[in-house]
């Protein structure tokens, strides 16, 4: 590898660089070691220890660099090189403030999930595979975070998709798990295809995929006469590139497609609820805290390359996703499905945040969400674990009894049985619902403030429809309070409904008890990180949190941008801040009131929930089936694709091959005609010539008397005759 340059804003530090590389590589080494050793006992502890080391190193690098500067280093990976061109593809490590934050979050949550899985996954046959892939996932995720160019991001991007595939399909004997894994990967591939198109556009305009270089070159490009113009440095000169300005928007939307796939945004969000087929700790790490947030991270990374049109689309898609999924979360039976839809909804918030230009708020929400959502998933895992243990104890006596361990209809009242788990869950729920004093309030409030500033920015005067984003955002915020309250009540409050369905369980209820300490610790840490003070001393001011203080919104460089936009947004944020804070508090109280009205503990809804059937009525069905999106895709699109595939197969056999067979038959008929011609006419001539030549030979032979010579001459004559016949 070749040393290219050291363009770090801090004094280049070899040992920090080395440690950063170590952070990236350690999880991979862990994965490989686990595979090589192949022992169940070793794998969980080895994986956890390696993650601990990774986390500690991350903390070290974070403390060294946060608020100090960025670390950037590039190496050459491969080059297309000749006399006339030189295209370099580099590998680069970029630890800027954004990646430092993500590094910390990813390594911490990955460590906690490793730790939690030690007990949770203990019984599993494929434990080695589990820890190996978990390590590989962490490696890939850290790779996305540390990469400095779009190619490397794309590579790790696909690799996290691959690890997700392996982990969702962890229980590969289960049909549903295998299907969910397949679905997740294919849908992500659709998004990735768009991502690739975005990369192609940027490559063709700038000849590089390096993010810092792209930033500069984007700043130097301009719009002229409806064309997007840039100058590509060649070996000796510049090449002027001019393409229609629409491609600038398409480039942004292409990159956004990657987000739409990975962060489960409209219209590709249907894979995430299915991904809950994976083990619950995996859902916590990959499908709640880290991988699905990678899409938001990508948007932040390419933020400076997005123009106003693509950002507007992004804001709308985010808001629509947030609203749609929040509606779906209100009526699910499965505890993990509720959390999955809630994740989609929160991701929608983050995407909307980027779209409205509230870059720092979106990242802040990414981080707070990672903690509280991972906590919710892990505590949900504990609930499932406890109920599963109850099921096993019951089965010792009544082996025929089975129930769905994730079904909310059978839960309730677990607060008393699982007090610590409940506490952690309650803290995280308060955070996601936006109770002042908890982290979620700060970040969500910041995003809504950004949306307010955006829709009221003087640059967009007259675009009243931008308020739709705001409306959907606020509606989703209210719905969040409602579905979280419902989930809390159905899981933890009132009386447990399981004995109402299976009376025999009553005698075994003592088996339902708090989970082991090792499974309590990780959610407890995550719950602690969901408290507002961890981020900001001012409980109402997300903007004063150390996260948002440390992240500067990068100046966007796309041509055709209103000059005032960024400053106007900043002014708007100042102006609207306190209003939105009050509104957020109002939302929380209002949502709580509505939720109480319907779902309060001991009420009709909660106590009779075990009898609940498939939702009736249009709105309820729409909510339960998540707007029938899945039915649309699997029922219509996927079926159409398979039908089309069958059509192509039919064409191959019935059309192309039929022409071929016809030609072959014609050929055979022709050959028969030829054969007849040859036998009756050509053969006749040849026989005649042979006869003539033999006569001639006898004549010659009698003349010269030498046998050998005559044979020679006869054959020569024959050959000559043959050649003559061939030529004429």
């Amino acid at each position, binding site marked *: 590898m070749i040393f290219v340059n050291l363009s770090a804003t801090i004094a280049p530090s070899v040992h920090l660089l080395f440690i950063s590389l170590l952070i990236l590589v350690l999880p991979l080494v862990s994965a490989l070691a686990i595979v090589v050793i192949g022992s169940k006992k070793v794998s969980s502890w080895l994986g956890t220890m390696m993650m601990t080391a990774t986390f500690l190193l991350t903390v070290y690098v974070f403390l060294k660099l946060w608020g100090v500067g960025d670390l950037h280093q590039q190496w050459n*990976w*491969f*080059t*297309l*090189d*000749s*006399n*006339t*061109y030189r*295209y370099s593809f580099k590998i680069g490590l970029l630890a800027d403030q954004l990646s430092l934050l993500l590094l910390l979050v990813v390594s911490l949550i990955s460590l906690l999930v490793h730790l939690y899985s030690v007990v949770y996954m203990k019984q599993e046959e494929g434990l080695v595979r589990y820890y190996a892939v978990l390590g590989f996932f962490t490696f890939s995720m850290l790779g996305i975070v540390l990469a400095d160019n779009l*190619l490397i991001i*794309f*590579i*790790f991007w*696909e*690799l996290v998709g*691959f690890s997700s*595939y392996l982990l969702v*399909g962890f229980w*590969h*004997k*289960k*049909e549903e*798990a*295998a*299907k969910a*894994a*397949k679905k997740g*990967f*294919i849908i992500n*591939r*659709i998004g*990735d*295809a*768009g991502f*690739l*198109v975005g*990369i*192609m*556009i940027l*490559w*063709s*305009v700038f000849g590089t995929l390096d993010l810092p270089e792209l930033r500069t070159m984007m700043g130097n490009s301009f719009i002229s006469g409806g064309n997007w113009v840039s100058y590509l440095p060649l070996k000796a000169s510049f090449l002027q*590139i001019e*393409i229609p300005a629409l491609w600038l928007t398409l480039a942004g939307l292409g990159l956004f497609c990657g987000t739409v796939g990975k962060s489960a945004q409209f219209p590709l969000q249907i894979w995430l609820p299915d991904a809950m087929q994976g083990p619950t700790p995996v859902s916590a790490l990959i499908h709640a805290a880290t991988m699905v947030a990678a899409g938001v991270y990508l948007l932040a990374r390419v933020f400076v390359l997005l123009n106003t049109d693509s950002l507007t689309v992004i804001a709308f898609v985010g808001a629509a996703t947030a609203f749609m999924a929040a509606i779906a979360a209100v009526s699910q039976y499965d505890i993990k499905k509720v959390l999955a839809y809630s994740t989609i909804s929160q991701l929608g918030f983050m995407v909307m945040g980027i779209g409205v230009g509230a870059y720092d708020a979106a990242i802040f929400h990414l981080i707070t969400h990672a903690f509280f959502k991972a906590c919710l998933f892990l505590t949900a895992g504990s609930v499932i674990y406890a109920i599963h243990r109850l099921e096993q104890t019951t089965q010792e006596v009544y082996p025929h009894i089975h129930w769905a361990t994730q079904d909310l209809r059978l839960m309730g009242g677990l607060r008393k049985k699982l007090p610590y788990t409940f506490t952690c869950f309650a803290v995280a729920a308060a955070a996601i619902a936006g109770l002042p004093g908890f982290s979620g309030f700060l970040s969500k409030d910041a995003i809504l403030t950004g949306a307010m500033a955006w829709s009221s920015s003087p640059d967009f005067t007259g675009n009243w429809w931008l308020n739709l984003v705001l409306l959907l955002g606020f509606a989703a915020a209210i719905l969040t309070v409602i579905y979280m309250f419902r989930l809390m009540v159905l899981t933890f409050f009132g009386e447990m409904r399981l004995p109402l369905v299976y009376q025999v369980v009553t005698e075994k209820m003592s088996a339902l008890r708090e989970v082991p300490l090792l499974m309590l610790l990780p959610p407890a840490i995550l719950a602690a990180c969901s408290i507002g003070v961890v981020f900001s001393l001012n409980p109402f001011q997300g903007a004063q949190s150390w996260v948002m203080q440390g992240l500067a919104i990068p100046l966007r460089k796309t041509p055709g941008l209103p000059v005032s936009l960024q400053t106007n947004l900043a002014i708007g944020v100042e102006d609207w801040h306190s209003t939105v804070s009050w509104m957020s508090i109002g939302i929380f109280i209002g949502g709580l009131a509505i939720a109480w009205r319907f779902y309060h503990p001991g009420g009709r809804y909660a106590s009779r929930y075990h009898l609940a059937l498939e939702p009736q009525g249009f709105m309820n069905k729409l909510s339960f089936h998540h707007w029938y999106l899945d039915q649309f895709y699997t029922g219509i699109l996927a079926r159409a*694709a*398979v039908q*089309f*595939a*069958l*059509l*192509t*197969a039919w064409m*191959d056999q019935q059309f*192309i*091959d039929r022409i*071929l067979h016809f030609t*072959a038959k014609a*050929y055979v008929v022709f050959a028969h005609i030829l054969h007849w011609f040859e036998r009756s006419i050509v053969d006749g001539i040849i026989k005649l010539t042979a006869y003539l030549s033999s006569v001639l030979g006898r004549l010659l032979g009698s003349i010269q008397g030498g046998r050998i010579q005559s044979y020679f001459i006869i054959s020569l004559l024959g050959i000559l005759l043959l050649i003559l016949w061939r030529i004429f």
Partner: protein
Amino acid sequence: MTAYLLSLIIFVPLFGALIILAIPSAAIRSIKYLAIAITFLQIILAGFIYSVYEKGPDAPAGVHIEAAYQLQEKAPWINLDLGSLGTLSIEYFVAVDGISITMVLLAAIVMFIGAISSLQIQVKVKGYFFLYLLLSGTVMGCFLALDFFLFYLFFEFMLLPMYFLIGLWGGPRREYASIKFFLYTLAGSIFILIAMISLYISVIDPAATAVQAGLIDHVQEATSENIIQLQQMMRENKIDAGNMVHTFNMVSMADSANFIPGSLLDVLNQKLIFGNAARLWVFLALFIGFAIKLPAVPLHTWLPDAHVEAPTPVSVVLAGILLKIGAYGIIRTAFSIFPEGAVHYSWLIGFLGILSIIYGGFNALAMRDLKKLIAYSSVAHMGFVLLGLASGTAEGISGAIYQMFSHGIIASMLFLIAGVLYERTHNRMIEDYSGLATKMPYFTIVVVIAFFASLGLPGFSGFIAEFLIFLGAFNAANVNQLLPRWMAIVATLGLILGAAYYLWTLQRMFFGKYFGKDAAWDTLLRDLRPIEYVMFLPLIILTLFLGLFPQFFLDLVNQSVGQLVTLINQTGKENLELILRHISL
């Protein structure tokens, strides 16, 4: 030693084939081990070629410059003085450049793996390995020959053993498949033959002609001044037709100054055939001839049948190497000799590329036979090669060559996988299996690796190849206007289709509860045997290595690709301008 390296790699297997003829057919083991030893020797020779091949930015890189070919071996072979028609000259001319060396390496590796896989052949062993080694030598010859006649000879001699290998050792419908294969490729050969003959009558060997014309005394003395002088004289009609030495040398064909003025394929020839210039017709003839081999939709229907009927090792060789000869032929003949065709027909070539990608992908999705699915995925992946070549950009062409190598490795793996199942149960229907991961966990790991490598997961060689092709195909609209932008965008559909058919297959065959159509399979479906690991491991390592360290490969091809890109974008455009000017007159 290095002087005859290329001849050795061609003739050692041919010699081995003769030895096998001498071994009594009962000595099955010695025949098999001899064949493996010879293919292994081929790998060693290929390694030698690799090590003595000069790499790096200033290394000579071939393509259209004869002096820039490495390891040249040249000897007059057939010289016929045809009086006033000039002299016919066929040479034994073999050499390597950056493009052919990668194919030689690939062929050596795949042939060796195929030989190991051939251990399972039980009937008519002697004949099988005789043909296999014959194939091995002729394939090498194809990649190394620079005399069109010699190339054509190897090309035809390669089809013959292939025909018999499918027709005698194949599955139930082997006769149909082998005849289909034969007729298709024969049709292709006729196109190539026409192109070759019309080239022969139009092109002279400047050095040999200079000797005839009395400029110099001996071919070796020819300097570039002599050659330019001769070409100048020929332009001015100062060379007597009887003194012209007509050649089959492909590199001479790549220089338009070597075309006899007024001849059929002269750039300045004003005669049109059916409204199109002869050069463009001949380009199309070459292109179609090799596109059948590639295969490009709609000329592909021989491939699924041939694969389904062929025994596993023959499928491996067919997908791993023979398809590449199609792509190689397009680069070496059509693109290098008629670069204007590459410019003029770029749209068509790119369109056939995306047609193959998408049509092949959809067909793969519909297949119920695992081997047919893999066969159609080959069609789709070779479509990427066409798309990359059509772009005429550095990224696109590098990616196309990368894809040729990468697909050779990955397709070999895939057909071996189909073979593992078929060998155990004689059944390849996807719906007849389920939950194989439970029965054959290590086999499943190999399948997952091969499938993901084939669908272009980063880390494997296919990703680098397809990524470069995408960049190039899209960039063409800016760089040389050879392809519209939508083509690259539409081609990304291929990525989604690839994921769909592979993952659907994984889900149906390998995941879920175990099920086999026949109860007897319970005992038959055992996990991989050591010999199978020996076949899979090198391929897996290789595809990973090329996915992680592309520079290793690009060092070989970079300079040659650079020359080809210049040839297409400069010479090609200049020639095309001349030709089109005549057409508009």
